[in-house]
């Protein structure tokens, strides 16, 4: 396999879960709900998808169970955010801690303690490492675009995120609209979680989401709360994440050292223990780019006005 193909396949594998999660979160944030608990949904649904596949043997059912887990989780979040009007950021952060604890404990009690390994069937590979979930993410982008901008319910949803009071006055149930958005958010994150454990790999590892839920939040922002923007930003993050695995084979390191030699910096860099390019700087790059996008963006492409604000019906 050529290096370019390796990077491309790596990019697809890294992008897919980010894209699903970010699309769901875009819808939720457009309706005015910020769900910081994505990381927890990814982790929990990765675990349940893996567990279901382990017991039933069919990875498609695993993906379905992952999706359902995401919905259950989102409904639980919705109970706190929409019924109790608890602070959304707080609830999300604590949900993450809860998910980390419960998946770690269950994995340990069900498998690690009995020296059993959670190796399961995997979704069939269409081409090398690509499964059906990757191409399916493109219609998902189109669907979200169509939903948000071409349907009445999409218009109502965006109204709830910008002017909940006006939306309410126009006879839209803000709570119901936001609940639907959250269910979609949970389902998408559930698919992404299942992707991690039954499509991208064939096992569950504690804390396997490794911050992808937070990256998705960054993607939603970098993509300016817009599904096409999400696609572009997911590809950017997926590409840089995939580069770290390929940095050596790509000859990037050779280039780095060549440049250092041309600039007569080899000795200096050697003294700093920087003979090789620290790939962590690659990983930081998309975050820096997102910060720059945020910094440079005008106020016309800002966050939904009512993002994170509970709406209380008087």
């Amino acid at each position: 396999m050529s290096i370019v193909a390796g990077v491309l396949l790596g990019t697809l594998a890294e992008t897919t879960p980010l894209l699903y999660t970010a699309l769901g979160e875009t819808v939720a944030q457009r309706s005015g709900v910020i769900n910081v608990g994505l990381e927890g949904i990814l982790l929990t649904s990765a675990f349940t998808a893996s567990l279901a596949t382990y017991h039933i043997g069919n990875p498609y059912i695993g993906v379905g169970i992952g999706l359902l887990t995401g919905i259950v989780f989102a409904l639980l979040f919705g109970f706190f955010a929409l019924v109790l009007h608890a602070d959304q950021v707080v609830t999300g952060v604590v949900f993450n801690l809860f998910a980390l604890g419960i998946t770690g404990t269950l994995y340990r009690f069900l498998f690690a303690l009995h020296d059993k390994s959670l190796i399961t069937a995997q979704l069939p590979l269409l081409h090398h490492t690509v499964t059906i979930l990757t191409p399916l993410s493109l219609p998902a982008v189109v669907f979200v675009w169509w939903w948000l901008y071409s349907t009445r319910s999409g218009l109502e949803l965006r109204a709830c995120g910008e002017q909940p009071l006006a939306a309410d006055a126009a006879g839209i149930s803000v709570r119901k609209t936001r609940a639907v958005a959250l269910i979609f958010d949970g389902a998408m994150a559930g698919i992404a979680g299942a992707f991690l454990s039954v499509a991208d790999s064939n096992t569950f590892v504690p804390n396997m989401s490794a911050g992808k839920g937070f990256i998705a939040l960054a993607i939603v922002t970098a993509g300016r709360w817009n599904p096409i923007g999400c696609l572009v930003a997911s590809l950017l993050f997926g590409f840089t994440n995939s580069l770290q695995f390929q940095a050596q084979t790509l000859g990037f390191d050779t280039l780095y050292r060549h440049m250092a030699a041309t600039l007569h910096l080899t000795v200096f860099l050697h003294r700093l223990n920087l003979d090789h390019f620290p790939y962590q700087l690659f990983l930081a790059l998309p975050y820096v780019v997102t910060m720059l996008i945020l910094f440079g963006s005008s106020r016309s492409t800002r966050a939904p006005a009512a993002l994170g604000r509970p709406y209380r019906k008087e």
Partner: protein
Amino acid sequence: MSLAKRLPAKPTPLYPLMRFLGIAFLYIIGFLILLVATFAVFGVAPNKALFALQQGALGGGPISPAYAISETLVRATPLLLTGLSIVVAWQTGMFSIGGDGQLLMGALTATVLAQLQHVVNPNLLIFLMLVCGTLVGALWGAIAGWLRVKRNVQEVISTIMLNYIALYLVGAAVVGPLQESSHSNPESNLLPDKLLFAHILPPSWSGGITTRLHSGVLLAFLAVPIVWLYLYRTLQGFQLRIVGQNPEAARAAGISVNQTRVRAMAISGALCGLAGVIQLLGTSERLSANFSPGWGYTAIPVALVGGLHPIGTLLSALFFGALEAGSVNAEQTLQVPASLIAIVQAAAVLAIIGVNAWRQRYPTELKD
């Protein structure tokens, strides 16, 4: 509510305290029930597990009290400082979750300065590390505050990104310029003893075992009265809280809302930066790629359980520290995974969030 109704109807000076103790008591009972139930579900004998928790946190059995309590205090320290940082930011209405990044930047700065160990007097260098680590933490927080007021970027999102940038900067540093001498592990050299905080308990107190209690813990506890005085006894602190409660009213009263928000984020970042330096010089003794196990995130439940008040946060940090020390002991002696206690912790905090939100939604006549 029946408990609250029996209390004096007219608020006496003791009323808030009684009320607080009553609620805290109910929460602790609830927490213990939840803990026992979870142990039972996972087939761990609850009495044994509770004993192990208590021995790890407070001493007893083979563990000397001095050792156990010092573990509790050491583990409470980063949670206390990051928790106070959350208190300052959230009281100003800034929902920062950037504690981890600010803490890492503080520790990174201190490690960079530690390279001057052969040039600068050690005591001066420790002082410099504390000051510069705090300042860089403050800068990291202020960036998020500045983005909020100038560019209307939600601080929730910018702090997450600043967390990752800090994480990868530390990651690059510990495989690059700051890597240990053998160049094999992603960590820095152990700091020399002259740069570390002194261990303050004599080993004879704990049966000859050196406890990890260090002088930095005292520094962290000193932050509690300072933050309290700042928030409740200075004009700036008053402005901070007004901005948090009602930015429109604050603006009408002539308070510069933007300046106050940036200031709050800077103070919040400073506390986390300080936490990073103290953790580095007192406990970790070296910077590594996984320096923080997520203190900046755990700080949020700590501050919430503490009612977003400095004194409450002190108590809750001690409680979380005790729980952590206890669960480490339970893991070692009974193979009860520490994540089991993390579940109970998170569930308890969720319950508190739910109850508080419920009470705000349906205020009783007793709500103050």
